[in-house]
């Protein structure tokens, strides 16, 4: 593999860029592997990368039903952060943040990790206290958190509506290390790294069933490109987890919901951070290309359609205008929808499935993109060793049976409220 650098770029420019090689090998599936990862999104590819890199297991296939990164990895708003409250979540997301911080050098691929800060606005004393609780929890877990008063917020974002707002800004919680990363580049970077270490990335290969051995354990998968065998199979297909689980004959504490996101026409830099509104569902940042990338709440009904409806669009824009009245003349250029694995407590699952040999990586709700490196790291650990990684030890499937829930919002067993 060509190592990427300004020098290699210049050298290739001299030859008209005719000598670049494919970023990853578009593999044809072999009959058997040590491990199959179902799902060529960020999580699946990161899992394969870390299986090869951390555990030396490279007889691995990543099976993608369409094109890699075509699911939620390519449909999110690219935010990375570790501003979680609960002890089941915060160590995991902070570990992910640490991996983000070294990802480009590790992958030799510029994923454009931009630690521009994530600012959550608050609008009441109670909300400020809730943010204080969260910020304190983050600090206890070694993450960074700064509680800002109104003037502190004004210094960062003077364009917010401080005076006419229905819910005036009273302060905010800032995570300076939070920010954004280029989502597609994360997919391609992990794919390149995994492929380079021998992993087979197989596109247009949809899993249609599971092979079971005499003891009932999984032994492989049936796919649109034939039978592929492996004793260990991990599924990382957020959005479609229930469908794949159904092929293996079990149900998950998950519903699929559509989350829309939006981008504006390209503008000169105007929004320096990631900013979230505390009195409505709205978050926004500006891409390096200049588009304002924003979103809000899910559409709230079960969906596999990758598209939503107007009420969610209106709600997002109303919230945007409420907090940033300068947005009125900004034009929305494009919208898209991703299918979220909305879990019953709002937190993910990285665990063994109820079937031997099958492992589940699912339930990421809104939080999948920022989790990508740690999810891959921890899922690889589980697949390679059979034991949960310490940072993901709370993401057990049986927590719903035991009551050890990880419910950040306190919304209960109602996936569309998380």
């Amino acid at each position, binding site marked *: 593999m060509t190592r990427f650098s300004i020098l290699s770029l210049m050298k290739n420019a001299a030859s008209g860029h005719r000598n670049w090689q494919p970023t990853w090998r578009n593999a044809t599936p072999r009959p058997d592997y040590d491990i199959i990862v179902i799902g060529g999104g960020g999580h699946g590819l990161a899992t394969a990368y870390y299986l090869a890199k951390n555990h030396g297991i490279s007889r691995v296939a990543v099976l993608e039903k369409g094109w890699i990164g075509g699911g939620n990895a390519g449909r999110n708003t690219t935010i990375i952060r570790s501003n979680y409250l609960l002890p089941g979540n915060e160590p995991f997301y902070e570990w992910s943040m640490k991996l983000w911080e070294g990802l480009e050098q590790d992958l030799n691929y510029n994923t454009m990790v931009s630690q521009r800060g994530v600012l959550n606005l608050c609008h009441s004393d109670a909300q400020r206290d809730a943010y204080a609780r969260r910020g304190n929890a983050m600090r206890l877990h070694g993450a960074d958190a700064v509680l800002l008063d109104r003037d502190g917020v004004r210094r960062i974002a003077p364009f917010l509506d401080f005076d006419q707002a229905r819910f005036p800004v009273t302060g905010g919680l800032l995570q300076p290390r939070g920010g954004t990363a280029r989502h597609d580049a994360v997919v391609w970077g992990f794919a390149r790294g995994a492929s380079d270490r021998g992993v087979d990335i197989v596109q247009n290969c949809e899993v249609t069933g599971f092979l079971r051995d005499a003891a009932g354990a999984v032994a492989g998968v049936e796919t649109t490109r034939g039978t592929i065998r492996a004793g260990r199979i991990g599924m990382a297909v957020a959005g479609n987890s229930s469908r794949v689980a159904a092929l293996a004959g079990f*149900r*998950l*504490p998950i519903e699929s919901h559509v989350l829309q996101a939006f981008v504006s026409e390209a503008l000169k830099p105007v929004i320096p951070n990631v900013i979230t509104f505390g009195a409505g569902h709205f978050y926004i940042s500006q891409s390096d290309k200049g588009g304002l990338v924003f979103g809000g709440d899910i559409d709230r009904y079960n969906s596999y359609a990758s598209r939503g409806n107007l*009420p969610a669009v209106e709600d997002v824009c109303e919230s945007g205008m409420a907090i940033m009245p300068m947005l009125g003349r900004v034009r929305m250029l494009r919208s898209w929808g991703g299918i979220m694995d909305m879990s019953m407590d709002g937190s993910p699952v990285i665990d063994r499935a109820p079937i031997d040999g099958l492992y589940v990586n699912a339930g990421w709700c809104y939080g999948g993109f920022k989790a990508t490196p740690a999810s891959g790291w921890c899922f690889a650990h589980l697949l390679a060793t059979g034991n949960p990684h310490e940072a993901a030890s709370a993401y057990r499937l049986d927590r719903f049976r035991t009551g050890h829930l990880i419910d950040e919002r306190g919304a209960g067993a109602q996936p569309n409220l998380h």
Partner: protein
Amino acid sequence: MRIPCPFCGDRDAREFVYRGDAAPRRPTADDEFHDYVYLRANPAGAMRELWYHAQGCRSWIVVTRDTRTHEIFGAELAKDAAR
């Protein structure tokens, strides 16, 4: 999206609160509660699901809808559906 409320007619989905799959029935045996509260078939296709006309007649209704296309095939009052 328009929800065909049996009382109020076709109404904007904004007037409704969504709950989810209408299939799970509250069990009587304790050991069935986990499945009732947490496990969902989450089908890709036609699904009977509960909507609450919060800003209308306050009926819970069972809507049959395709989760892939959002096509709606019909709706009935949850009270009637239970019978």
